[in-house]
């Protein structure tokens, strides 16, 4: 009888274990996202644009794309 009880206890514990690894989740409607330009994210924010100003953010990203990904702006198209 005892081994049966011990086995049952062990099985219960094993089944319960995975629950410890699960994180709480929030069910419900999809959350709304904030605009990318609207919130400062800390010290890693790139300079050259004003937080909350969509126009300056867009202009900054466009400049960053042109300067960072188009080497012809530095070397000229040959």
């Amino acid at each position, binding site marked *: 009888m005892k081994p049966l009880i011990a086995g049952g206890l062990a099985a219960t514990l094993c089944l319960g274990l995975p629950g410890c690894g699960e994180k709480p989740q929030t069910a419900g409607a999809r959350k709304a996202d904030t605009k990318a330009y609207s*919130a400062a994210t800390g010290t890693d924010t*790139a300079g050259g644009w004003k937080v909350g100003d969509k126009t300056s953010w867009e202009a900054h990203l*466009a400049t*960053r*794309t042109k300067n960072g*990904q*188009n080497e*012809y702006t530095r070397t000229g198209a040959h």
Partner: protein
Amino acid sequence: MARMKFICDAERCIECNGCVTACKAEHEVPWGVNRRRVVTLNDGVPGEKSISVACMHCSDAPCMAVCPVDCFYRTDEGVVLHDKDTCIGCGYCSYACPFGAPQFPSNGTFGLRGKMDKCTFCAGGPEDNGSAAENEKYGRNRLAEGKLPICAEMCSTKALLGGDGDVVADIFRTRVLTRGKGSEVWGWGTAYGKPSGGDTKPAPTKS
């Protein structure tokens, strides 16, 4: 602003996997999940080409259309994101995506398939921009920091372009005109529709 888009220049990609590594490191993507990967076309055949593939943030995203819990949304910049709290990990998006972008970590109970993970264009998720919760679920939100996707910014040959669609298309156009070849943009038509004026065949007429 135009929509955010990716372009991979197959003439320039040297299959270094720098984009893959940068993405994994920036977002601490778990083992077994690759938001971005490099694919070789016509492998072993002379003239083979490599391209870097991830979520292309399609104009008419099929993943959004098939999701049974409607967890996807599109930002003002055209970036397709999803809410992991709503995702049930069913995998429908994986079947719908023409680029194989949706990834499913098997770190749940008994190896259960977890919630979908994919490229966010470095724009995080619905949590507060730059918050710890956002970082843990989706990785870093570089767009909110005024930066572009790390894969594109890290690309050593500038094969992978990412940013405002008009700007990256202009950069690519200049390249093609300069070198006089390699105008094919893999996945562009699939993700963003046919280029304007691309279909030059006359419309069929009734006899």
